[in-house]
């Protein structure tokens, strides 16, 4: 099926994009288009106007600055996959990037677009939550920063206003003793996650967990934090028992639905396992734990 007709606008600056979003009637923002274009052609989306941000060169970046790793709205999944900075310091990003869709889609799809799409099966929202990250949005009143915890509302629904453009996402640069990881269960390349867990651990000088972040994919109506598991970890030294307890708590906090990939109890069990594995990798990468926790 052909997409319904729409007007195609190509702003070259953020300000131009925002004024288009303000003046047009229910515009849809097009970034990588790897979700939106099929939605257009199946007429699941029928916008009258599309604001295509691919010409805004200032949004095409991935860099560390002012204490944050910041990804502009045109940073593609492949840019994360190929970034030496990410490979060195951001384990969860380095894990997640090559697990997104397939190579062609990673060349075109954007990380910020994926987060703004807010598909609960999307990987990046979990990574953002685990890192206490934020979405940077530009609107008619200027820039604001939306913490990841306040960003996701419902499937495909966020706290972004209609006339706001998500221009970047950012996470704090790692502490000296910090590690992170992402584990994803999927049947084959190109599939969304059946379940996924991002974990980030920060250790104090004593080797105790000072801060823990756990984000879960595809097991709730949005990407979700495992807050009780996080709280259970903080102040403790990592041990196989501790990670098992955290895994169980995360599984309890998850709310998966049964579908063709498995029933809810199976997915909860997978959250448990993936949480333990992601935490073990995060601890190892922080340089605190020598060996991986056996499964």
């Amino acid at each position, binding site marked *: 099926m052909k997409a319904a007709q729409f007007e195609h606008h190509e702003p070259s600056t953020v300000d131009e994009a925002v004024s288009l979003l303000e003046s047009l009637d229910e515009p849809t923002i097009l970034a990588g288009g790897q979700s939106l274009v099929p939605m257009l052609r199946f007429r699941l989306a029928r916008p009258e106007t599309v604001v295509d941000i691919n010409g805004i060169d200032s949004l095409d970046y991935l860099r560390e600055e002012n204490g944050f790793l910041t990804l502009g709205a045109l940073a593609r999944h492949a840019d994360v996959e190929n970034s030496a900075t990410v490979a060195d310091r951001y384990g969860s990003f380095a894990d997640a990037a090559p697990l997104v869709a397939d190579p*062609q889609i990673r060349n075109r799809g954007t990380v910020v677009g994926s987060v703004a799409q807010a598909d609960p099966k999307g990987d990046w929202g979990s990574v953002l939550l685990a890192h206490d990250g934020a979405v940077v949005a530009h609107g008619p009143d200027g820039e604001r920063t939306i913490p990841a915890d306040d960003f996701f509302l419902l499937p495909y629904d966020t706290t972004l206003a209609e006339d706001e453009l998500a221009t970047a996402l950012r996470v704090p640069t790692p502490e000296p003793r910090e590690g992170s990881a992402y584990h994803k269960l999927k049947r084959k390349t190109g599939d969304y996650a059946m379940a996924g867990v991002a974990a980030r651990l920060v250790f104090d000088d004593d080797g105790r967990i000072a801060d823990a972040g756990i984000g879960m994919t595809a097991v709730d109506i949005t990407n979700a934090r495992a807050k009780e598991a996080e709280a259970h970890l903080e102040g403790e030294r990592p041990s196989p028992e501790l990670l098992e307890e955290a895994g169980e708590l995360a599984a309890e906090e998850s709310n998966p639905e049964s579908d063709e990939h498995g029933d809810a109890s199976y997915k909860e069990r997978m959250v448990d396992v993936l949480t333990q594995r992601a935490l073990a990798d995060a601890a190892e990468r922080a340089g605190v734990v020598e060996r991986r926790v056996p499964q």
Partner: protein
Amino acid sequence: MTETREITLTVNGTERTIDAEPRQLLVHAIREDLDLTGTHIGCDTGNCGACTVLVDGEPLKSCLMLAVQADGSEVLTVEGMAELPESAGDLHPIQEGFHEEHGLQCGYCTPGMIVAGKALLDENPDPDEEEIREAISGNLCRCTGYQNIVRSIEYAAEELEARAAADGGTDVASPAESTPDVAGGQDGPAFDCGVENCCGGPSLEADEADQPTDGKTANGHDAARDDGGASR
């Protein structure tokens, strides 16, 4: 009604201008407006990879991109493979590999596989099996079980390496008449880039006339390249 927009693509080295509605997908522009039906539509959903083309050197699914978004880009489709310098006027080594290693049965996925393979070898001339499988992981084949596709790309990697070695290890360039270095010189009837129906090369065989020839000039090949480079 939304109006069409004039867009210019450098497709397989030739600059082409078409009118596109914003809603038109790149794959439809390639197949219907440019008449290059080697690029296939398999699934309509962005899963199968049969519509894979290179846009500015990157493999993309042309059913997941609007034609207007490719304005000013260089596009390589399977029809352009045999025109590349490393093909030396014959089949590209990847195409040769699919022939030699029986890399296809029904052939539907083949154009996407070949283009995805080309993108891999451009980045990584000596991939191992795992890297090949990863590079074609966005391309579905329902016939071969992938074994022979992997072998076909391995064949091409070896063939390209052998040709590079035969050229003194300087470049994967075509031999003799189509040395790309010459392209820096004067264009004109005397110059022959070795590509069929281009730059004074041999004329297109009737049974291979899959590609429209309108808009081509004697030096269109080079002119298009220069434009494409400048617009990036």
